[in-house]
């Protein structure tokens, strides 16, 4: 179960170090769970490895964080590849008795990094030579996730005749949700004209199709079910899955219009619940097209139907049949990355703690992460 979520101050630039933001979020999450720091016996972060693969990755060092907390741990993990979902490995750690209460965090200083670089930094800005999978992409000019994802969006528009005006309802609607989230980075209303007027970054992805680099940390406490009586408001992980069924590569993925389907199918196979039972959806939105993938993969609409599903914004707004990214998502709430922000919102929705943006009776909430070759999907329900 997920017992606590907590976040630091979130903003375009926050004048605290990554280390400070991390500790702010951990303390907030532990208090939210109804626990004290001494109860924490597992630590995990994403990504681990100690080295940033993009400027502004600010998790810090796992051992320094343990030292600052002055705790004893029986399980630790710094993940780089294969995370699937933030709470996936921590849930297995508590289920197998390795720890009782694991906190996992993700800290970004990407807003500050973008300001310091005079724009959103490129992959190629940190090293002279590309290594690993990026060696195939950076030399030809695919220097950013934007350029790597853009062909997926181009192929989708081409194959299904969808338009940017239709898909634009995703960022426009999410901005309206962000207006109801005091912690969102961008809260002023955005119109379709604003969206279409955004400068093109890499066709067909324009400025407002991209998530917002920000500073902030999110921490999540995952606890063993045995501890439920000690917890303030635990939330059940009903089902989760993370499947890679194609070539794990941005450019080699064969059918770029279908992403996340194997993960979603595996997740649905682990529950009796159905897509129609989901009251709101926190779907990964590094870019607009990723929401399109997940709407279709999760079965909220059919393949090729997402553009019609989101057109006009009615279905995906608060009060609609599937309120989408009710915190504003990464497109307006801030790029807290790797579905940490989505998970925090899902937990709060299930508990009924979302104030003005609360979805009534949100007893089943979906979370998805990334898409592309790494992917995760889960349902959270009332405990």
């Amino acid at each position, binding site marked *: 179960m997920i017992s606590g979520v907590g976040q630091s101050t979130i903003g375009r630039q926050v004048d605290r170090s990554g280390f400070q933001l991390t500790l702010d979020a951990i303390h907030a999450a532990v208090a939210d769970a109804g626990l004290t720091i001494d109860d924490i016996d597992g630590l995990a972060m994403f990504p681990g490895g100690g080295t940033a693969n993009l400027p502004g990755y600010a998790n810090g060092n796992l051992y320094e964080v343990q030292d600052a907390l002055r705790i004893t741990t029986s399980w630790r993990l710094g993940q780089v590849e294969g995370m699937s979902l933030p709470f996936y490995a921590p849930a297995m750690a508590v289920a197998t008795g390795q720890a009782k209460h694991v906190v996992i965090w993700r800290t970004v200083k990407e807003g500050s990094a973008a300001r310091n670089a005079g724009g959103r930094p490129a992959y190629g800005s940190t090293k002279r030579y590309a290594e690993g999978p990026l060696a195939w992409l950076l030399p030809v*000019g695919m220097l950013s996730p934007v350029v790597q994802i853009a062909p997926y969006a181009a192929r989708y528009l081409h194959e299904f005749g969808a338009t940017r005006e239709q898909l634009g309802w995703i960022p426009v609607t999410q901005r309206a949700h962000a207006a109801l989230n005091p912690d969102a980075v961008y809260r002023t209303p955005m119109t379709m004209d604003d969206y279409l007027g955004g400068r093109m970054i890499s066709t067909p992805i324009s400025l407002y199709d991209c998530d917002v680099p920000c500073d902030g940390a999110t921490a999540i406490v995952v606890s063993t079910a045995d501890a439920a009586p000690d917890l303030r408001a635990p939330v059940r992980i009903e089902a989760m899955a993370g499947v890679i069924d194609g070539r794990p590569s941005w450019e080699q993925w*064969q059918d770029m219009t279908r992403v996340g389907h194997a993960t979603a199918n595996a997740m649905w196979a682990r529950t009796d619940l159905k897509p129609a039972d989901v009251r709101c959806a926190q779907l990964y939105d590094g870019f607009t097209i990723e929401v399109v993938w997940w709407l279709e993969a999760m079965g909220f609409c059919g393949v090729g139907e997402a553009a019609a599903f989101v057109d006009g914004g009615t279905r995906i707004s608060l009060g609609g049949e599937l309120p989408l990214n009710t915190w504003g998502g990464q497109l307006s709430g801030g790029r807290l990355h790797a579905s940490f922000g989505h998970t925090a919102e899902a937990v709060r929705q299930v508990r009924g703690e979302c104030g003005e943006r609360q979805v009534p009776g949100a007893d089943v909430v979906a979370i998805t992460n990334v898409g592309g070759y790494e992917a995760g999907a889960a349902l959270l329900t009332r405990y």
Partner: protein
Amino acid sequence: MEWVDVTGTGTVYSLTVNQQRWLPDLEVLFAVVLVDLDDHPGVRIVGRLRGIAPEDATIGMKVRAGTEPGPDGTSIPSFEAVTR
């Protein structure tokens, strides 16, 4: 694993025209194409498209593989449109 010779023509599966100057010395605009090689199903190569205006690139167009000079004496995959 071993090296296999492939023929040089293919079909553009998808593409993007990059307009953002990610690095100080990056010249924009340019088209990046994802090319499925005609005679080798499952083999996809990514490269720049040269010889035509980036905005004239289309999904489904026929291209031929080649290289262009990269930094420090390297060669970088690139494609040119096949004209009939």
